[in-house]
């Protein structure tokens, strides 16, 4: 296609190398004005990199960028911003202890001379935009106090505030509930009506079908194809993305639950600000059963996990495993009582990034034989053990046992944790957001592992913000809202919308369960 002013963006032969690793390899893309254009690809396919190039964060090694037919040298984000490009990053770029307003105006402040910020005026401006596009955001709230969904709307506001005509959304829906996703799609349509253009990156085929007009697929840094979304099926998209056919539905046998091993009885937990985040929550999990907790981030999941793992004290209620109360003891005690946890924050809670894979594998067991004797570590045993794990869980690269875990890719870091926790042979396996940021392949693997453990007769507690995940993997789906389990269903007895509604605090109109 020749360069023309009908296009918001045209990229030609974009190539980007990190060292000798080619993240983008001669990519051509054309994005029509006023369309919603999806970018699809696996983890590490190069989507974010491509967008970072378009936004001027990275400089491409080869290739040109044309905006409305004009060649532009994107040497830094300022140029992009000046040309009306706005980007909402995959990992939010918000300063936690700033207010919404401060975050939005940052770098583009409204000043009343002498560089003094005119907060009043800025606030008015922002409120105008908020109303115009129907984004619900409290301009005075601190980022650390608001939900992920709202944080994302703040990111969008940031772009709009800078007068963006082309909006790049990098995996915007990863953390949203169905309702929030619908709202987002509404917002996107409002923006299109307003003559703006949108590029949306996502792994979720369903959303592409729902929202996008056209979709470009990238694989391993190479351009594969651009298709009219109306004309393709999800399966075709998936195949194009991965390069071979993938199984989108989790296949598992009917659960055969046995007696209760884990029991939470009207548990109350306070958050940092000493307000109850978990309120009289009760929950039972039986052997050979996966209980999935569906809910929007910030409804007490964090506190629930911290309470079970003894990272915080509980204000009331009991947590029993095999009949033993474990609340208000110590993380050590939790582990000793055969509760294993795959924490959502793998890098902060799950791993010591500077330790080798081998050492990370034994972080809960280094004091036990054979890994140590009389206070001295037995490196040989430790390495042997991790070699075995690496093989068993197909962690890549396969000779990484003596490498610092920092060097591993996100998905492989996740595998290290899963291997370690499962190897603890727990009675209860807690998995929090176990597939966050992983690609279809890796996700499939994680789900299989959880189910395998269930079939071994273990109790599994799955906590995820990805509704599909909960719906597909769990045998029992419990919806958490405002620190309470509002309702739970057997798998297959309920549809997404009902759950979504409950997650958003809506009343369940008795038609299901």
């Amino acid at each position: 296609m020749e360069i023309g002013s009908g296009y918001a963006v045209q990229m030609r032969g974009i190539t980007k190398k990190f060292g000798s690793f080619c993240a983008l390899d001669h990519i051509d893309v054309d994005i029509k004005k006023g369309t919603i254009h999806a970018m699809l690809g696996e983890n590490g396919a190069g989507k974010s990199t491509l967008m970072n190039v378009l936004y001027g964060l990275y400089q491409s090694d080869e290739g040109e960028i044309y905006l409305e037919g004009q060649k532009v040298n994107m040497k830094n984000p300022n140029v992009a911003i000046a040309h009306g490009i706005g980007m909402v990053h995959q990992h939010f770029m918000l300063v936690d202890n700033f207010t919404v307003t401060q975050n939005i105006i940052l770098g583009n402040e409204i000043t009343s001379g002498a560089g003094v910020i005119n907060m009043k005026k800025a606030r008015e401006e922002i409120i105008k935009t908020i109303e115009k596009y129907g984004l619900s955001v409290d301009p005075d709230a601190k980022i650390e106090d608001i939900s992920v969904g709202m944080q994302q709307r703040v990111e969008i506001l940031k772009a709009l505030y800078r007068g963006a005509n082309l909006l790049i959304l990098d995996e915007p829906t990863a953390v949203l509930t169905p309702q929030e996703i619908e709202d987002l799609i509404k917002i996107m349509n409002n923006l299109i009506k307003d003559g703006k253009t949108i590029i949306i990156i996502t792994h979720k085929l369903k959303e592409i079908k729902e929202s996008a007009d056209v979709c470009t697929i990238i694989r391993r840094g190479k351009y594969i194809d651009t298709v009219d979304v109306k004309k393709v099926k999800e399966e075709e998209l998936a195949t194009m993305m991965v390069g071979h056919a993938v199984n989108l539905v989790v296949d598992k046998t009917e659960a055969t639950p046995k007696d209760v091993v884990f029991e939470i009885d009207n548990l109350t937990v306070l958050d940092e600000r000493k307000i109850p985040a978990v309120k009289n929550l009760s929950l039972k999990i039986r052997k050979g059963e996966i209980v999935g907790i569906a809910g929007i981030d910030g409804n007490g999941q964090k506190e629930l996990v911290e309470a079970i793992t003894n990272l915080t004290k509980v204000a009331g209620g009991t947590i029993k495993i095999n009949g033993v109360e474990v609340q208000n003891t110590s993380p050590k005690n939790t582990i000793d009582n055969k509760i294993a946890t795959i924490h959502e924050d793998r890098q902060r809670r799950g791993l010591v990034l500077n330790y080798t894979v081998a050492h990370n594998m034994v972080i809960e067991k280094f004091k036990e034989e054979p890994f140590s004797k009389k206070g001295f570590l037995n490196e040989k045993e430790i390495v042997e053990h991790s070699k075995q794990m690496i093989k068993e869980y197909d962690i890549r690269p396969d000779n990484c046992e003596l490498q610092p875990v920092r060097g591993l890719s996100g998905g492989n870091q996740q595998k290290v944790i899963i291997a370690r926790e499962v190897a603890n042979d727990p009675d209860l396996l807690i998995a929090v957001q176990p597939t966050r940021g992983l690609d279809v392949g890796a996700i499939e693997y994680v789900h299989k592992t959880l189910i395998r453990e269930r079939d071994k007769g273990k109790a599994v507690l799955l906590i995820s913000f990805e509704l599909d995940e909960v719906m597909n993997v769990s045998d029992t789906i419990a919806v958490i809202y405002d620190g309470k389990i509002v309702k739970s269903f057997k798998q297959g007895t309920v549809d997404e919308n009902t759950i979504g509604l409950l997650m958003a605090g809506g009343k369940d109109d008795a038609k299901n369960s």
Partner: protein
Amino acid sequence: MQKIANILKKQITSTIIAIIFGFIVAAIILAATGYSPADAFTAMFEGIFSRPKYISNVIIKSTPIILTGLSVAFAFKTGLFNMGAEGQYIMSSVFATIVGIKLDLPPVLQIPMVILAGVFAGAVYGAVVGYLKARFGIHEVITSIMLNWVALYFSNFIVSLKTFHQPNSTATFTVNESSFTTILHKWKVSPEGIAWLKEHPTIMDVLLKTDVNIGIIVAIIMVIVISILLNRTTKGYELKAVGFNKDAAEFAGINVKKNILHSMIIAGAIAGLAGALSVTGVQPHRISTMAAFENYGFNGLSVALIAANSPIGCLFAGLLFAGLLYGGQSIQSTIGAPSEVINIMIGTIVFFVALTRIVPVLADKLAKRGEKHAH
């Protein structure tokens, strides 16, 4: 490319680069101020190597800073910044002196008692910092800085006390000879000792003219002990885990607070060992009123940093540092260049150590690219 990368990756490489730069800058400064760098460095190296006893002196002077360096390095490895080594050193020398004066047992008992007193004092002083951090989350750097001064005044207070104060001086009495860890300290000044030594001038030079003492051996042992503790034991595993990522450590069932406390106790004890060994090992075997810090702790800081916090590294960094300090005096006394040049040189070296820390990182990236290329 991999080869180069691997060589560059070696910590030692960048440190050596740094030292070379340090000398170059010092040379420039000397030249710029009308002194011949050649003469200066000759003087310095002669001052360090030209006689056995000079070497012996360098070793003796390196002992305390190797240990304080080790203390700082250890704390760093466990995620703590032990600025308090200075104070721990002082406290230790104070209590070693007190016990050394008040107690007079046979050496086999006396020496351990005196040294333990010092080590204990240092450990306790470190523990205060550790406790305040673990219990109240108070930054160890503040408490360390404050406690260093408290130690200084406390030491001066002890000196001023009648029971310890040696009249017409600003010092305490010297500790009882039974506490000396100087090698053959009695024999070498006895007539027969002198007589024998006269026969063997070199040995005489070293033994008689310098306070040869067991310190360095203890220091080496400690270096080994600490590297084993850090790298081979479960305790070391815990301490480092807490240092690298206390959230993960906590989540894995490791008691973070306890480990912070333990880490500071150990660090304090090591610095304490340095203080005690100085009192027992070298003249004047006592403490005296301090108008300012003697910088054993702060030099330890530089030593640890030059050593990139490796215990073994501290051994060599300590020797280097002592060499510079001691040999530096020759620059001063021989060609008259102000001794500040040495401080500038040391500063420059440390500065370039900081700069060259980037080298391994770059090398790492280099290597990574290589790998990526591979598969």
